[in-house]
């Protein structure tokens, strides 16, 4: 008794849920409600079914149907085994089973349809569309065989294939109707709960500043009297009611730097024009220029038909601007800037010296901008859009620089780099500039306020050590730029050019006082042991890997190996690594008493501090040093 009461309750409950169709394939349940069924493809047709007695044309009753091809519904169920059967079950438990192939319309039997209208009356039937307008008993028997055909009083009747009030479409049904009803109730409840569980939204706003709003902000605005309007907009001929804020009010929060009112709208900025981009949660993004859109055209809706909703853009506009699940509004306005640091760049040379502020340089005839790159020794490439002054043009006009000069650039931290004037004037690969803006913003103190970089349409790339940062002074020296190299060999081979050596000396500058018979001279250079790091192991070299990895192999040096210093003319001396290890008193120098080396020593000299306590045995000065070689025992 109790069982029948329970069944009756479920049946009653099922009736209350009438209008839905449940599609079942194993554990996979798909519930299609009326609104979902209404937008699926429908087929409209006329067909007559043979019965037991009405098998001739005179007796056939042709009816008009409209419904969804079953192949569309089967598409919701994923993979179905080819030998499966599909059972259509009515609300009252009546069922009909069919082989899958038939319901996929594979035979000549006709297209199976879940009809939503029969002679204009709404409902849910299983019916069949036959191109010739008739579903005959012969068709039925031929296609379905006796096992699946319909009989009435022992006689075939195609009309019996119709199923009224279809509720379930089940793959390989086990016949348990009670379980089906129970599960359908549970599924319907799950859908209702999912409808109630709304994900909390947040909306990002970016422009001159950034902001973020969420439902709590909306609530706060309402409490503070910010009025959301109610508007009606039509979409696909259907009008819906929305609670909205004009889009411009949200843009106002970020279109410039505000001191007081967050909704202070920069109207003039909008009219002058900038790019506004609306981005949805699913990635869809659409942009427009504000000059092409009235401020009254777009709104952001926070409820639809009285129900809170994820923000969406609405308005009397093209559908492409109706962005649902709005996630971000981006206004491409100039970012709010801190005051640019006051800085003066100094220039000097044979014709005199002067200095210029960045503002003066910006307004000068030499101001240029474009994309440029530099690549660090670790192989990382940085590409940006730079603005500054054309170095070559400025130095030629203001300093009288010629192609045979050398340009020396000194940084705030003492780093120095020399450039050939010829290279600076060579525009074939781009233009060398003294850059003080990057990507539209002033360069910060480090690497700015000024750095050297090459720009051009082809986004030229330079080595990182040639892109000098924190430039303080630019000096034109009326001496030809002479390149040179130092060869290093050992467990690796490498050759350092002038720029690389100068960079190394700038980073690790050492000075020693060398006492000769006649003079006492101060040499500037880099400690020898630092250069040994390039060739004392097969894996690591200075600046070629992460800073956490030391390139100098002290362990090997402590074991002892020979270091041979070769001069250009073949002269050589051999020293021990044990005595060169971390010894800053022994240098490879490129300057003497603050100037370039004299011709007898140029370009490099092995030199040492005469008064140092720890000097390698046998050390002598090696002029015109060309090659340092490590030899393991």
């Amino acid at each position, binding site marked *: 008794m109790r069982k029948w009461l329970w069944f009756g309750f479920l049946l009653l409950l099922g009736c209350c849920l009438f209008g839905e169709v449940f599609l079942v394939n194993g554990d996979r349940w798909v519930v299609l409600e009326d609104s979902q069924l*209404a937008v699926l493809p429908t087929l409209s*047709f*006329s067909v007559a079914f043979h019965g037991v007695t009405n098998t001739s044309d005179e007796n056939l009753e042709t009816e008009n149907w*409209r419904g969804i091809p079953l192949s569309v519904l089967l598409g919701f169920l994923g993979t179905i085994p080819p030998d499966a059967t599909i059972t259509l079950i009515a609300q009252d438990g009546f069922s009909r089973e069919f082989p899958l192939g038939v319901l996929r319309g594979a035979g000549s039997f006709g297209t199976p349809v879940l009809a939503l209208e029969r002679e204009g009356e709404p409902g849910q039937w299983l019916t069949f569309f036959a191109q010739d307008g008739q579903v005959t008993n012969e068709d039925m028997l031929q296609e379905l065989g006796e096992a699946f055909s319909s009989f009435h009083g022992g006689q075939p009747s195609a009309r019996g294939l119709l199923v009224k009030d279809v509720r379930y479409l089940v793959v390989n049904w086990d016949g348990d109707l009670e379980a089906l009803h129970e599960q359908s109730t549970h599924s319907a409840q799950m859908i209702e709960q999912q409808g109630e569980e709304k994900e909390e939204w947040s909306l990002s706003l970016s422009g001159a500043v950034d902001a973020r709003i969420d439902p709590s902000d909306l609530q706060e605005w309402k409490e503070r009297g910010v009025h959301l309007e109610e508007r009606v907009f039509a979409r696909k001929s259907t009008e819906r009611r929305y609670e909205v804020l004009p889009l411009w009010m949200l843009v106002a929060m970020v279109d410039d730097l505000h001191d007081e009112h967050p909704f202070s709208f920069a109207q003039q900025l909008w009219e002058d024009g900038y790019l506004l981009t609306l981005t949805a949660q699913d*990635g869809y993004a659409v942009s427009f220029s504000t000059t092409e859109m009235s401020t009254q055209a777009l709104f952001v809706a926070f409820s639809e038909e009285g129900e809170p909703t994820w923000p969406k853009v609405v308005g009397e506009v093209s559908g492409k601007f109706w962005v649902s699940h709005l996630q971000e509004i981006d206004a491409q306005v100039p970012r709010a800037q801190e005051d640019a640091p006051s800085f003066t760049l100094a220039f000097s040379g044979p014709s005199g010296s002067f200095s210029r502020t960045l503002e003066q340089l910006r307004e000068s005839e030499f101001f240029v901008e474009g994309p440029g790159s530099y690549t660090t020794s670790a192989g990382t490439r940085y590409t940006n859009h730079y603005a500054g002054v054309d170095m070559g043009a400025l130095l030629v006009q203001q300093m009288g620089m010629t192609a045979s000069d050398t340009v020396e650039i000194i940084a705030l931290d003492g780093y120095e780099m020399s450039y050939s004037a010829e290279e600076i004037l060579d525009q074939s690969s781009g233009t060398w500039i003294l850059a003080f803006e990057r990507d539209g913003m002033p360069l910060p103190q480090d690497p700015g306020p000024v750095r050297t970089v090459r720009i051009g349409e082809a*986004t030229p790339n330079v080595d990182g050590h040639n892109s000098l940062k924190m430039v303080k002074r630019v000096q034109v020296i009326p001496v030809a730029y002479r390149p040179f190299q130092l060869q290093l060999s050992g467990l690796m081979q490498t050759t350092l050019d002038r720029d690389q050596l100068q960079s190394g000396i700038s980073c690790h500058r050492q000075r020693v006082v060398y006492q000769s018979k006649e003079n006492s001279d101060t040499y500037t250079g880099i400690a020898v042991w630092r250069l040994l790091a390039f060739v004392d192991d097969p894996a690591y070299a200075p600046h070629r890997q992460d800073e956490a*990895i030391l390139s100098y192999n002290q362990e090997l040096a402590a074991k002892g190996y020979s270091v041979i210093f070769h001069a250009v003319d073949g002269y050589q001396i051999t020293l021990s690594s044990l005595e060169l290890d971390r010894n800053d008193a022994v240098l490879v120098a490129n300057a003497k008493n603050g100037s370039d080396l004299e011709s007898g020593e140029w370009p490099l000299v092995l030199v040492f501090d005469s008064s140092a306590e720890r000097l390698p045995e046998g050390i002598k000065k090696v002029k015109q040093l060309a090659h340092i070689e490590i030899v393991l025992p």
Partner: protein
Amino acid sequence: MMYKRMYRSVFLLCTVSLAMLGATAWASAELWCNGQPLALPNQNELSWLFGQPNPEETFAPFPFACLFPLMEEIHEIVLQLEGSQLLLQEENLAEKVWNWSACLSSGKLVVSIPTLGENPVQWVRLEGIACTEKELEIWLSREGVLELREQLQRFADWFGVSLHILEIPDIPARLQAYLRAQEPLPDVFHVESSQLEELVDFQSVQGLAYLFSQDSQRLQSLQPNMRDAFLVNGVPYAYPFYADTQMAFVNRELAGRDFVLQDETDLWELAARLGSSDAWACSWNAYSLYWLVPFLRGFGMDPLLGCTNTVDVQHPAVSQAIDFLLALRDQGLLLPEERDAMTSLFCAGEVALILSGSYMVPQFERLEMEVGMFALPWNSRGGRWFSPVLDCKGLAISARTKVPVLSRRVIDFLSCLPVQQRFCEQLRKIPARREALDRMSLPGELQQVFRKSLRTGFPLPTASSYGIWKSVFWKILRFVFAGQMSVTQALQSAQQLVDANLSY
């Protein structure tokens, strides 16, 4: 082209009128858009649209959408079939119609709609909102720019829009510079999977999940192994367009016409065939991670990266793969060489087998070399295939586009069956669209290579950690092949370097 169709539609209207009076109508189907009649294009016109030189030649069904103007939204389509009328009012119809195919068969228009099958159609009425976007900028790079430019121009002429087509060698660099300088970006552009994470990081591309949620057929239409080629953190940011695959090329004169590459033992077989010849059995760029990856997969490293895109250089497969290559080198089979040197040696007959990309196929065809083509072989030692990389190229939509609808239509057009068939056939590419490969006329060996590569191959990870790994291995593998480091030492160092760079 659209204007010609409108004039023809007037003529058609008159003809239909005569038909209604009992005269015989010679048009096989009627098309109506927002109440206006349209002419059904003929075979010649469609051949022109898809760049098919011979109108008599059978070609792939074309997108149903090409029968109508570009639509921003389609609210309703009614098709009069034989004995029934089909009404469609579902969401995103304007997107879905690009996956419906149509063909002209025996004077009839036959439309194929997913889940609804093929249907001869008597007339079609479409109601919706026409696309008002008329201009678009597209950046292209790499191969096939000329062919794409021509195809896009035909698209533009057909639909009455204006496309600015630019060839840009380094699209990410240019995009980055333009973005930061607030210069207008293109609307659509070519991307490679290796560039994608960077493009996402500086917000130049929009996520395309909505493309696939609007129409599930889009995903179903793609080659399964290419569907995930452009995912970054699980979100698709580009639509797959075509791919190249890693493969083996064999000099038939050296190897013999009957040589077949099935598993790794065939490399020794190849060496034996060369006998005392000075030629090397095989050569490829063994210094590059890109060419080590198939061997990593062959020894069981799958996936390449950890679940949070970590790199495990000390996975057993890595040392096994490197040891395998070292053994080939030590036994005199393998000559590690970079691409240009390797190709020169191969063309000069000094190497019998090289590993290279399918992008080399047109070059060998032009040289008229007798070259055998094979997919990467089975690894009997590892019990797996040496899986080739599917180097995928895709189309992305700018995060700042003003013409999102036209951008999607361009992508829809370039990914439709006849365009994919023709473009990929011309340039010997693997089409992203599944059906296209079946219809392409390719040398038999190449067809087999493509099919097998699609089964066993995989796209490269888009995560930047792969790029870091590749950069580190570029030096480390050289040390290993030069004998300056043992495999164990090298992998320990490499792991340190990769971890250091990833944590930076």
